[in-house]
């Protein structure tokens, strides 16, 4: 962590020292370009601060960063939003489509059927994302049917409360 962080204390104190020294200038004359130069230092410092902050945030975003393993546990590709997971749909020799599916759909019996097919084709210990061997249109069909059921349930709970 050490080499990525920096001490704000040093930046702030050196900046103030600079400003203070310029106002206390013993020569008794004012530099004409003083205020714009001071501003530009301040702006530059701000920009650098922002850049570092963004870099820090993007590295540590997504909680699981394991200090022991020293590697980010979030995938480097486009992060999967909360509540969703990526599955790959397609048939052998064809190209696979990456689809984001709500995680709650996975527990649905209709999806269970797709998972059984995936297991028969690739086994449980298939590396990487879950790959479903079916036509994309069939997959979309199942997804819509589950979505309809989930939507209906949501409506029911709405009426109850």
């Amino acid at each position: 962590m050490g080499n990525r962080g920096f001490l704000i204390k040093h930046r702030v104190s050196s900046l103030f020292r600079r400003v203070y020294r310029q106002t206390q200038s013993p020569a008794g004359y004012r530099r004409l370009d003083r205020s714009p130069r001071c501003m530009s230092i301040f702006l530059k410092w701000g920009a650098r601060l922002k850049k570092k902050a963004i870099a820090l945030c993007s590295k540590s975003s997504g909680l699981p960063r394991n200090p022991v393993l020293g590697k980010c546990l979030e995938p480097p590709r486009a992060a999967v939003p909360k509540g969703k997971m990526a599955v790959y749909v397609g048939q052998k020799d064809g190209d696979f489509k990456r689809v984001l599916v709500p995680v709650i759909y996975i527990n649905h019996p209709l999806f269970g059927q797709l998972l059984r097919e995936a297991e028969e084709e690739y086994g449980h210990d298939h590396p990487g994302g879950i790959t479903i061997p079916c036509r994309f249109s069939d997959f979309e069909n199942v997804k819509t049917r589950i979505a309809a059921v989930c939507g209906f349930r949501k409506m029911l709970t709405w009426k109850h409360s």
Partner: protein
Amino acid sequence: MNIVDDLYVKFMLSGNNYMNMVKPCWKPSVEGDVRKTGDQSGRTDGLLWYKDLGSHVSGEFSMAVIQANNLLEDQSQVESGPLSSMNSGPYGTFIGVYDGHGGPETSRFVNENLFPNLKKFASEDQEMSASVIKRAFLATEEEFLSVVKEQWRICPQIASVGTCCLVGVISNGLVYVANAGDSRVVLGRAERGVRGVSAIQLSTEHNASFASVRDELRSLHPDDPKIVVLKHNVWRVKGIIQVSRSIGDAYLKKSEFNREPLLAKFRVGPFSKQILIPEPSIFIHKLNPRDQFLIFASDGLWEHLSNEEAVDIVHSYPRSGIARRLVKTALQIAAKKREMRYSDLKKIDRGVRRHFHDDITVVVMFLDPPLTNRGPVRSLPFSIKGGQGLPRTNRS
């Protein structure tokens, strides 16, 4: 409002029930301090079971189990105290990790019967030895095969259930490791002059993914060209199973269980020599003062964590809850592999979970030097079984 009134009346009428509901609030909270209260049977949280810290004869231990299968197929136990039925016999700690496959029956059977068998043979010999452990394995196998013979007519599927079997016995300054299958035990040893702990694997695994295991199978069955087959990019014995040694799996032990009405996918044709064997590989390790802990775990953990990573985690974090931390780290990696978040993985139901990770059992045994030179203090016998309280019946 009506419901609330009803409840109120019910509480007023049945003071007893009310007391029962409130009582738990008065109990002291034991969260995070299991040591003081001696929470014997562990706790559950959804599909997770854990015992954050307990004591055994030669130190402390931590244990955790996560369920992925519809029925938990991993079983485990820690037994501390006398290792024979006599008081004068060997004394120490017994650790068992049983990773079942095809169902929970064999691993549950081994969890109940292997340790009593070990005690029986240790009493006969008046000592602990590799021979005692091996005889305990073989006796348990015989007992299970006789159960299969009894139930074959009613429930032929029992013939296709088996379990990997990893046993550790810590007694008299020695660690005996006996393994049949692909569970693993890793020793963490402090290195001289260097910070950190090195990982030393004590168990031998019997998984057809190792060339040595395939060679062993081919030499045992020279007249069978299909003894190991590559299927779905995975080496399998007879194209069916990855492990080459196990307890149970009667259909690959005796030809009489490899026929109808057993499912066609398990039938391999008649054979005279058993295809899988129950004999464990046994290794005896003399404990060194630099030996700090042992990590016993089913292959569910090791498919996500390397020996070094696991040892590093145990070395760098507090003891209490360390087994749970190993399980959590494995699940975070499993979630990453499946391109989802760990928080979302926890929402997946048992059964479906198997598509994301396997059942995982972790037992971490800390090897603390005895306080006195008189050897381990003879404390009360202690026994714990992993996964108590996790769902044990089929989903309706």
